């Protein structure tokens, strides 16, 4: 079966990496006796290196160095101002025995699943609907993308008001049909649902745009052929659209994994700490994500070493999940 155009990126890659086009091949096996052309030194490319250096300098200064400095910090005890004290693996030992850390991991994973599944499914459905829309295309696209460019703080405050336990809009509407007020912002699971709903609201439009781009690359002839064979719209969706879109779906899964696991602002704004209660993450710490716990440990409790240990342990977890994702991607390619 001919590979559909969407997976064309794989074909392109073959040209760019790997053995390369034929005209470069003779260099690898120079004819005997031929004078080997003098290899140009790295320094002779200084203009090119200079041209790309701003990014690398900024990256080194603001990302690379801090990242490894935090690794160094995770073996120290440091309050941000005083002297650092080497404590070996003690911070990681604390971490292993810290129930709040494990709670934060569970919270993060639960919120991630609760938000990613509806986000991606909703985005795919919306993209399909939008793809078949004939009029007001621009309007729908903008309307669905707007949540993604809205300030996350504003959205969180809005959600806080809408889902408010005692005086929120949702409970008011439920009240009119005789349903008792639901404790959205204090029940441990509903807290996660609200945070996940917020993230779904923000990211569905973003993923929809990506899917829409993918859908537009599917040639109409494939659909026409399916139609002639008698496939209805639902069958077309599951047996043509989804298989062809697979690489794009996997791309969005990877991106959503990285974004979803790093949820921080949503619970932070939704359950802002105050002078009387400096805890983060809401009642019962049900909305305490790992990054929020890191923030609390490092910047509120002045325990920078422990904070660094939290993020490094979390980094390991993200690596594990990314490897799982990558495996799925690879399996998808082979079949």
């Amino acid at each position: 079966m001919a590979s559909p155009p969407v997976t064309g990126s794989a074909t392109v890659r073959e040209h760019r990496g790997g053995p390369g086009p034929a005209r470069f091949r003779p260099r690898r096996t120079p004819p005997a006796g031929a004078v080997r052309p003098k290899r140009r030194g790295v320094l002779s490319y200084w203009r090119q290196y200079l041209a790309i250096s701003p990014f690398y300098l900024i990256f080194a200064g603001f990302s690379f160095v801090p990242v490894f400095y935090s690794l160094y910090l995770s073996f120290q005890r440091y309050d941000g101002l005083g002297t650092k004290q080497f404590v070996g693996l003690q911070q990681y030992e604390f971490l292993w025995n810290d129930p709040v850390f494990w709670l934060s991991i569970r919270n993060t994973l639960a919120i991630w699943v609760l938000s990613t599944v509806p986000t991606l499914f909703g985005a795919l459905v919306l993209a399909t609907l939008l793809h078949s829309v004939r009029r007001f295309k621009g309007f729908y696209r903008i309307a669905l993308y707007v949540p993604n460019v809205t300030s996350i703080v504003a959205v969180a405050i809005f959600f806080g008001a809408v889902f408010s336990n005692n005086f929120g809009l949702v409970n008011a509407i439920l009240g009119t049909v005789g349903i008792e007020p639901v404790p959205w912002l204090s029940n441990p699971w509903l807290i996660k649902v609200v945070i996940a709903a917020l993230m779904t609201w923000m990211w569905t439009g973003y993923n929809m745009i990506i899917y829409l781009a993918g859908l537009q690359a599917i040639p109409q002839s494939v659909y026409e052929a399916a139609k002639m064979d008698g496939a209805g719209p639902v069958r077309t969706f599951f047996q043509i659209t989804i298989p062809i879109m697979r690489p794009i779906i996997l791309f969005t899964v990877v991106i959503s994994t990285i974004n979803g696991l790093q949820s921080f602002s949503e619970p932070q704004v939704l359950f802002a700490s105050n002078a009387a209660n400096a805890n983060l993450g809401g009642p019962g710490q049900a909305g305490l994500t790992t990054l929020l716990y890191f923030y609390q440990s490092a910047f509120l409790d002045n325990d920078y070493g422990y904070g660094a240990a939290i993020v490094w342990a979390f980094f390991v977890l993200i690596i594990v999940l990314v490897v799982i994702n990558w495996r799925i991607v690879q399996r998808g390619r082979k079949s």
Partner: protein
Amino acid sequence: MDLSRRGFLQAAVFTAAASGLTVACGGGSESGGTKNGKDLTLWYWGGALSDKVVAEAKTHFSGQIKLTSASIGGDFKQKLTTTLAAGGSSVPDITGIKGEDIASFLPNADRFLDLNDLGFNKISSQYLEWKTKLAQTKDGKQIGFPIDIGPTALFYRADLFDKAGLPTDPAKVAAEAKTWEDYFALGTELKKSQPGIFLVNNISSVFNIAVGQGTKRFIDEDNHFIGDQEHIRTAWETAIRPYTLGIDAKINDQTWNAAIGKNLATELGAAWHALDIESAAPGTKGKWRVCATPNGPANQGGSYLALPSQCRNPEEAFKIISWILSPDNNAKSYTDATIFPASPATYSMEAMTGPDAFFGGQKIIEVFGPAAEAIPVSYEAPADSAVMAPFMAELSSIEAKGKKPDDAWNDAVDQAKQIARRQGVN
């Protein structure tokens, strides 16, 4: 085109080199800094000082010093910590430090000047001793000059009390709510006559004040964890009472803003909390009153001014802060920005003795003034707020998911011990 690209690259290189040079100089020039600079910077956050008094200070000292003030937004402590750790010329000459952060700066007292060397010990009697002590290291180094304090009181709705047949006069209510148990009994009365009305917004606030009423907190002066001892256990039991009596509104989110004008009959809070109530429930104007906190006053918040050791002119800087925070100017600050001063002499000044319309014309200083002076001297360790956090979290767990109070206590103590160990407490 080619030339312009090269020109661009050259410009880029020069800019990069120049900025590198500036950074290098910025770091280096500090070492031989003189201590009689004429340009001083003051860092504070919105509402920490009266902008009007700061502006007056600028003109008052304009002959000797050019004072520049910066209102720093966001996480103030974090910005200050980062700047102090980085050093250099961007460190402010005078900075505010929040009351809840002062303890965590004490282990690094060497980053600040000892105000006693500059003459604070001569005027310290004008300020509340317990507040001054909290900004003092064990060996007596004074790093913070008290700006304001947050003496607590019991705010209550006179109209709801009246409906329940309870006294409404502040002195009488104070007498009726002398102990925590008396106070909770009022809540039961209120609930009987008006179902749906709660006495306290959440039990963490009760715990916070109950702990603050004592002289010992979670860590003692020898750096031992004492958060599992009797005084904390008592505060915990006190906090649990309104929950078991069903007079706890269990509000742990932002719905407080909506609840305050509706079904909360009382509020436990510091003097500044009056502003929160006023802005959240302007419709209840005239219905609120204030009386003494059950079982005695505590403190919540209240900030300091400090001079980082890089200060370019310590003598003048100290003159400026002692001028801004003099009892007379504190009265102006109170009028302008409701900053409750740490200088008792101000309490009898006209600015503070007037009636408050929001509290039905009550002279609220008659409650907060004596409270301020009765707050006990306590010891707050650098890791105190970190160690306190699990207790607050567990109290909110009780409210949110009905966790059994005894389990919550055990978990809180376990976690607090762990945090204490992490923070180097033994």
